[in-house]
């Protein structure tokens, strides 16, 4: 019997080695897998490359990971937020490398990795500093920039419900990067509010089929609420 449910947060991230590239879901705190990130902090892996939309809020989740100086580099679209002071300080001190990617190119590069696309021409960013040095091409009268897929060793994502085959559904805009990151990592780990029996998820509404998910770990509902509360 295949059972992708892992007993604990700590067990779910135990094997992540130093130097890994790790995708972390979320748009701000919506969809941010804070419980998994906290487990990753406890686990101690360092020299990480982080791929995500933002660079952490206040001193929780991703920001706490950065504060613990576990990340060598971050690839994201919007590091600067009202409460991103941890990242801001590291960046200004030259203590973290930043690869800034327009959000749609970030999403498409992640999707391309999951979909086996070798590279793609995108109109986004053409003629801007974020396309400097990149190959460009005029196609049917429009200018495009060539972008490459973003693969990861691990993806940490947050979903609402999951089953032992790794099928996932999300909640509202907390879906955001979860489905594409799950597809782009060698090992995708999902924290879910609830583990449900196989067959409880209607096959028409499964957003991430289990083929993209290697581990599922349940976190207590109140933990989810606490994270949401912290975002406010």
């Amino acid at each position, binding site marked *: 019997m295949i059972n992708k449910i892992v007993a604990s947060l700590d067990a779910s991230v135990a094997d992540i080695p130093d130097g890994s590239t790790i995708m972390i879901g979320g*748009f701000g*705190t*919506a969809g941010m897998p804070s419980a998994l990130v906290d487990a990753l902090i406890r686990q101690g892996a360092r020299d990480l490359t982080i791929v995500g*939309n933002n660079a952490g809020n206040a001193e929780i989740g991703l920001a706490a990971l950065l504060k613990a100086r576990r990340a060598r580099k971050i690839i994201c679209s919007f590091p600067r*937020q009202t409460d*991103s002071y941890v*990242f801001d300080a590291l960046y200004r001190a030259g203590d973290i490398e930043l690869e800034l990617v327009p*959000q749609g190119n970030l999403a498409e590069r992640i999707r391309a990795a999951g979909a086996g696309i070798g590279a793609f021409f995108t109109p986004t960013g053409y003629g801007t500093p974020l396309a400097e040095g990149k190959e460009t091409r005029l196609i049917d009268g429009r200018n495009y920039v060539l972008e490459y897929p973003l693969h990861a060793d691990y993806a940490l994502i947050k979903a609402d419900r999951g089953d032992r085959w790794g099928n996932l559904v999300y909640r509202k*805009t907390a879906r955001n990067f979860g*489905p594409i990151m799950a597809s782009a990592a060698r090992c995708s780990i999902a924290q879910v509010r609830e583990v449900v029996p196989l067959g409880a998820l209607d096959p028409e509404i499964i957003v991430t089929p289990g083929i993209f998910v290697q581990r599922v770990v349940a976190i207590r509902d109140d933990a989810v609420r606490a994270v949401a509360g912290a975002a406010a």
Partner: protein
Amino acid sequence: MKRFTRDQMAARVARDIQEGAYVNLGIGLPTLVANHLPKGREIFLHSENGLLGMGPAPAQGEEDFDLINAGKQPVTLLPGGAYFHHADSFAMMRGGHLDICVLGAFQVSATGDLANWHTGAPDAIPAVGGAMDLAIGAKRVFVMMEHQTRSGESKIVPRCTYPLTGVACVTRVFTDLAVIDITPAGMRVAEMVEGLPFDELQRMTAVPLLPPVAALGAA
């Protein structure tokens, strides 16, 4: 001199949004536009973080932090709205499915180049988000900004000095002084704030302007 207030600018932008339009309102000033959309007009608001059919802010105490907009503020979803993931959301933008996006700006050039993500200050933390995708994706790109900087410099410029967000992408500019179209012939004034003479507007604008078509006879 009379100037449009921020709410008047937002109301003016709202007037240009037809029923049935798919619209993305950028963070900052453009979010004000939502307050001015006519109640009876069905307009589909898109938010880059994965929703269509965005409704107004929730009542206090009813916020759901899994339901936020691009500015990370709690919102609501209208009946008929839908959620989707980030690749699908940006496919909507990049694929030309949005009719209109409304963006703030630092500068707009004579040919419609947009600079709105970075002032070029060396110590600034760069952050681009979805601005570049919106700039090149929507069928019409509206810019909503003060006509001049606080120190009185024109934000409409011959060439952007700030780093670009997109090339030749802006369709129409709404400022506190005027509504200006980017046309193949140049920047054409569509409307001016009441009582503002064209020459005075031109004086405050670093790019040669074409007068309103309606005013041509009088020019």
